C-alpha cells in the first residue's frame, strides 16, 4: 500500500533540486511511461497535466443467463432448434477482460448431420461489443456425435456484429438424430473484438493510460 505522506515529504524535500514547476512534481509522481487507470474514458491529462494516451481498456464484468432460453442478443434458429416448451434451452454469456464467453445448450428440431447446421446468432452489440470474431471454439456436441468447427459467416473473414453459431460438419457415431428426436446439443466458445475501438466505452470499467509526454 502507498504511504502517501512519505511520498509527499520526499517530493517536498527535493524541491530545491527539482525546482517548483508543476511539471517537475508530475515527473516525480508519474514520470513518462507511467500508467494511470480510470473507470471511464477520461484523460488524466485534464487534471494531472502531461500527455496521456489510451493503451488498453477492459470490459466490466457482466454475467447474463437466459430465462427459458430467452436472452437479449440471442436469436435461436427456429427451423433447426426446438422451442423451450419442448425441451430446455439455456445460454449464458460471461463478459470479462476483452472477451465474451458463451455456453449454450439446446435441442435439435431437424435431423442432425447436414453441413452448415445453423443454431443461433449472437448480436455482439447487446453485450457492448460493436463487432467481434469467434475464437477458442470447442465444437458443437450433440448427444452421441460431435461437430467439429463452427462458422462465422456474417460476413465471412471479417469481424461482425452477428456471430453465427453454425456446425460446419459432423462426425456421426449414431443414427438416431433424425428430426424432432430432441437430441441435446451443446457448445462453448469465445468472441473477441478486433480492436479496442470495438469495445464500447459504456461497457468498460478500466481504461489504461500511458504518459507519453
Amino acid at each position: 500500500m502507498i504511504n502517501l505522506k512519505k511520498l509527499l515529504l520526499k517530493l517536498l524535500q527535493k524541491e530545491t533540486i527539482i525546482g517548483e514547476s508543476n511539471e517537475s512534481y508530475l515527473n516525480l509522481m508519474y514520470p513518462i511511461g507511467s500508467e494511470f487507470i480510470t473507470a471511464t474514458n477520461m484523460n488524466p491529462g485534464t487534471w494531472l497535466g502531461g500527455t496521456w494516451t489510451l493503451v488498453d481498456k477492459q470490459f466490466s464484468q457482466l454475467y447474463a443467463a437466459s430465462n427459458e432460453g430467452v436472452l437479449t442478443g440471442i436469436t435461436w434458429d427456429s427451423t433447426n432448434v426446438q422451442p423451450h416448451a419442448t425441451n430446455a434451452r439455456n445460454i449464458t454469456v460471461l463478459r470479462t477482460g476483452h472477451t465474451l464467453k458463451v455456453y449454450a445448450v439446446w435441442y435439435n428440431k431437424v435431423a442432425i448431420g447436414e453441413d452448415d447446421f445453423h443454431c443461433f446468432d449472437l448480436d455482439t452489440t447487446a453485450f457492448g461489443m460493436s463487432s467481434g470474431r469467434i475464437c477458442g471454439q470447442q465444437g458443437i456436441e450433440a448427444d452421441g456425435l460431435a461437430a467439429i468447427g463452427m462458422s462465422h459467416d456474417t460476413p465471412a473473414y471479417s469481424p461482425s456484429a452477428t456471430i453465427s453459431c453454425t456446425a460446419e460438419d459432423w462426425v456421426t457415431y449414431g443414427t438416431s438424430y433424425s428430426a424432432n428426436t430432441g437430441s441435446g446439443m451443446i457448445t462453448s466458445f469465445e468472441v473477441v473484438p478486433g480492436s479496442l475501438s470495438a469495445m464500447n466505452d459504456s461497457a468498460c470499467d478500466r481504461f489504461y493510460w500511458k504518459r507519453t509526454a
Partner: protein
Amino acid sequence: MINLKQLLLKLLQRNQKIGESSNSYLNQIYPINSVVITNNNNNPSTIYGGTWTLIHKDFSITSWEDGTSPASQTDTVFTFNSTYWTPANYCAIIRCPNFIMVRLQCQNKLALSNTNMKDNTVQIGSFNLSRLGITEDGGFSQMFVIGADGLNMTGMGRFRKNGNTWDVCVDDWVGNGTVTAYTSGTGSNCYLTFYIYPRFEYKLDSACDKFYWKRTA
C-alpha cells in the same frame, strides 16, 4: 490544472490523510471514476478517504506442473477418477491473472466408446477448488475436445459444477467405427485442454495480488 506543490504543502501542514476533512484534495489526485490497484483486499478509503468499490481482481500467477509426476498426485489440485483413468505423465495447471489453463493427460481403463462413455456418466476427475483459488460457487460450464492417441477417436467433454465439486466429464466419443485399439485397459493416451474463467467475486482473496478499486464518491 492543479498546483501539485501547493497541494502537497497543504496536505502536510494539516498533517492529515487526503480526504479526512475534505474531498477536495482527493478530487485533485483521484477524481471520481479513478481506479487504484491494491495488492490485498484493503479498501483505499482507509488511506485516501472517499468511497471505493471493488470492480475486479487478478489472480497471482502460479502453476502446478510436472512432466513426470502429475500435479494431481503431488499437489491434489486435480484428482483423477481412478475407476476409469490412469494418470499419465503430464498434468499442468497454470493460473493466470484472469483464467486458469488446464492441460491433462490420462490413459483409459474403459473402452473409449460412446457405449461406455456418454452423458457425463464417466468423470475424468475433479478439482480442489480452494487449492485452485476459487470458491465453491460460480462455476461456468465449458466444453472441450478430448483427443485419443492416434486421433481415430475424438471425444467431447464438459467442465462443470456438480454439487460442491467441479467435475471434468466425458460427454461423448465419436470414431470411425472400426477402431479396435481403444478397448478396456489398453492405456491409450487421452489429451484435453480447457480454460476456467471464474467471475472475479469467486476468486479467493488469498489467490489474488491485484485488486481494482473504482472511486464512486
